[in-house]
């Protein structure tokens, strides 16, 4: 008998497609001029469309593929569904610690894992479905957009005039220039979930967030995974200790790690992909049934006619915007991966909402004032917000980190999730929080408390007095603040003692 949770409904994919791109869709007749035209219906475009239309503006939303963008279709949503399954397998590996006994190699049915992913994707697609958005009053156009002038673009043959516009075309996987790679049938984040079976040998090229997440997940599902990273550490954007904890965690899972290693050539022999690599001066071959490229993302800025719109861009950085997210055409804004260096779904949504406020409500909100948290969803997760220590030091800001190890947090101990730390970075001599780095099993949740704290301008003194539930992993944040408070009280007391008279 199949369990309810593992049963895949045959119409999940059909429902999903109906929501993100109905087969029988007919574009509406464009209105005379829209208050707001949005190019791209990924996380940024969808958030902008909803915000703008709820504010009472006429909105045209143009999408050349499916609504939801990478995040829903091939990115955050499907990968997190897979990662959840992988975590279950990770937990089963450690079951003995919790007093449970499970088979050493629990059987996995990959097709059911993928069916679950598709079911989840279908469920999440409802909120921003074509039906929901049109019900709100958004005019949705499927097709390629091309700017014709500073206030008009075409979708196919249909002219769409606008007063303001937002470019939210996202980004696509960057394909490195490796001789022979095109003959390997490599996969990217856009195609990795199309695999019908679990690969026996998976090689991940690139040790950024997505590469690390999927390397660990596929290893836990049962693939033999090798990850090749040209830098000496994973996650070059993160601090060294965080990256090293991740590295050890992946090694513990059995991921074969090749740091400081470049893939110089690829070839196919007898149905097997072979990657030729070099580490300093040591050359070696790696065999792969599947290859996943995770070597960064390139902004989708070509073939949009941006020159005609007076919008400056380049193919590496994307659309040039100011701190108000305005392009070189004052009526055209940009948000999300097409213009930001932080290529995360939450950054895309946040920037889109800000662009709506600035473009349509005459606000002057600055992107640089918005602390955006981000997270790499490995186990443990690695999350960050605000300044890194080295960024503060580059700006000559004296900075100090208050660190609490997760192995000193009761809830992390009871959960058996005691690897990692919470570091809160403050401007030394004050209690102003500049940033935070969290490595923990649920860092993606903990960092949001830091986002609220930083957005509200709460300092360490006030934070130290905020009661947290006990036990909770977020206690680590309070404990860091209390360490600050103890030090502050001691310094104050000493100063008073040493004061003249």
């Amino acid at each position, binding site marked *: 008998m199949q369990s309810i949770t593992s049963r895949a409904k045959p119409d999940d994919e059909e429902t999903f497609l109906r929501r993100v791109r109905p087969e029988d869709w007919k574009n509406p007749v464009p209105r005379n001029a829209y208050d707001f035209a949005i190019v791209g219906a990924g996380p940024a475009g969808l958030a902008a469309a909803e915000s703008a239309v709820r504010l009472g503006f006429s909105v045209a939303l143009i999408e050349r593929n499916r609504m939801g963008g990478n995040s829903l279709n091939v990115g955050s949503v499907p990968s997190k569904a897979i990662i959840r399954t992988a975590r279950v397998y990770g937990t089963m590996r*450690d079951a*003995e*610690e*919790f*007093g449970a006994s499970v088979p050493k190699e629990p059987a996995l049915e990959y097709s059911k894992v993928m069916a679950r992913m598709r079911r989840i994707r279908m469920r999440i697609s409802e909120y921003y479905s074509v039906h929901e958005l049109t019900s709100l009053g958004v005019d949705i156009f499927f097709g390629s957009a091309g700017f014709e002038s500073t206030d008009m673009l075409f979708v196919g043959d249909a002219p769409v005039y606008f007063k303001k516009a937002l470019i939210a075309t996202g980004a696509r996987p960057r394909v490195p220039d490796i001789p022979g790679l095109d003959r390997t049938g490599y996969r990217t984040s856009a195609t990795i979930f199309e695999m019908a079976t679990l690969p026996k040998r998976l090689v991940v090229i690139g040790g950024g967030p997505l590469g690390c997440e999927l390397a660990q997940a596929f290893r836990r599902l049962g693939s033999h995974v090798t990850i090749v990273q040209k*830098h*000496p550490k994973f996650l070059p954007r993160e*601090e*060294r*200790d965080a990256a*090293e*904890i991740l590295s*050890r965690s992946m*090694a*513990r899972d059995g991921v074969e790690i090749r740091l*400081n290693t470049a893939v110089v050539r690829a070839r196919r022999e007898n149905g097997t992909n072979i990657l030729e690599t*070099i580490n*300093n*001066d040591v050359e070696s071959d790696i065999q792969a049934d599947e290859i996943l490229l995770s070597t960064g993302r390139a902004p989708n800025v070509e073939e949009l006619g941006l020159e005609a719109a007076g919008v400056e861009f380049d193919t590496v950085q994307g659309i040039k915007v100011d701190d108000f997210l305005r392009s070189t055409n004052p009526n055209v804004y940009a948000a999300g991966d097409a213009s930001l260096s932080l290529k995360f779904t939450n950054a895309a949504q946040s920037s889109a909402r800000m662009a709506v406020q600035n473009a349509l409500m005459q606000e002057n909100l600055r992107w640089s004032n918005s602390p955006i948290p981000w997270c790499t969803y490995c186990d443990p997760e690695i999350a960050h917000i605000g300044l890194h*220590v*080295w960024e503060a*030091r*580059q700006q000559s800001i*004296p*900075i*100090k*980190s*208050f*660190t609490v*190890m997760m*192995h*000193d947090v009761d809830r992390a101990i009871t959960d058996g999730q*005691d690897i990692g*730390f919470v*570091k809160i970075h403050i401007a*030394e001599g004050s209690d102003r929080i500049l940033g935070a780095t969290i490595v923990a099993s649920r860092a993606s949740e903990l960092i949001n408390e830091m986002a609220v704290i930083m957005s509200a301008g709460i300092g360490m003194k006030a934070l130290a007095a905020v009661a947290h539930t006990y036990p909770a992993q977020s206690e680590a944040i309070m404990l860091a603040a209390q*360490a*600050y408070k103890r*030090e502050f009280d001691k310094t104050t007391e000493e100063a008073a003692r040493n004061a003249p008279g």
Partner: protein
Amino acid sequence: MGDLTRLSDEAMTVQLQRAAFSYLIDYANGDTGLVADTSRQGSPCSIAVVGFALSCYPIAIRNGWLSRADAVARTLKVLRFFSRSTLSEAPDATGYKGFYYHFLDMQTGKRVWQCELSLIDTALLIAGVLVAGCYFDGDNESEIRELADALYRRVDWGWAQNGTSGVSQGWKPECGFLHYGWEGYNEATLLYVLGLGSPTFPLTPAGYVTWELTYQWESLLGRDVLYSGPLFTHLFSHAWIDFRGIRDAFMREKASDYFENTKSAIAIHREYGERNPYGFEAYSRNFWGVTAGDGPGDQEMRENGRDRRFFGYMSRGVPYGPDDGTIAPWAMLATLPFAAKAALAGTRRLLDRYPQVCFQNRFSSGFNPTMSGNTGGWLSDGWYGLDQGLLVMMIENHRTGLIWKIMQHCGYVRDGLKRAGFEGGWL
């Protein structure tokens, strides 16, 4: 061993120091003066160990373990070897651009294992060369001074910046500079100081500033510290330079100095040992010393439902790890100048409980009591020269400050410190 722990602190320490020193004699090559990396059969020379040996000869003279003439002969043998060695881009040369390969054949002095031209190991070697140049001041010892000066002046530190503000960790003729740089505080202070002090091919001061930008000042386990995980990183530069009271820009900002920082790091290591978050056998406030060293090797063990992963030779650190329950038995005693009471208490407890870690009065490189079974823990085979050399120097600095005093009079070191922005104290 029972005899050793019954001795007074001073007597026990001196015995251990002398035994450690004897490694540098026992495992030196009679022709080249090179010293073996480890006591294991066929071990090549580590140039860093040679640097420690050169630094220890004056200590041996002071303690009466070597005659001055013997020490002079040994020192000259090494300096002549390096002076006459082949420096070129050839893959089997001894060095290049005044730097030397990490590991050399004990007899021929040629590069082995296709290893890297190592900047930090060259710095440790050159520090020993400078000790010799400064210490041997007799009229009939001028060749030592001349050779030492020439060896230092020919190191092309600027080349190692490879056109950047940072410094690479090494170079290979097969592939050029390694991609690894120096990130975060660690043992490289000595490298920067020696590089900045050069009158011939100095590092640019911007290199030191760039490195300092990667420092992390943290409140960690109840202490403020300039963080670095492995204990040895808080000791190596201090074997030669007395950092008490001298401060660079970073330490002025933090109202501390690197000596005080090492004291904080030791306190954190002890606190970590006491908390023992991962339940390793024996860890306590008097059982600590997580650092770089030999380890049980890549293997796994299941204990109380928990996976234990063990590592081979690697740099272990506190509190972020990696930590597999392995300590370096020599490490506690090597902290004598900073925390004498803790160093002695920990060492005595270790020797009492696990006497096997100190065979022939020399500490092994690594010991892991967690990986026990019925064998009393895993113990590294033989001895490592780096451990022995560092221990000799740290004990001597604690007892007499000999090496610190010698280096305080080394013009190149003084210049290097000043160019790195150090002020105050004995400077």
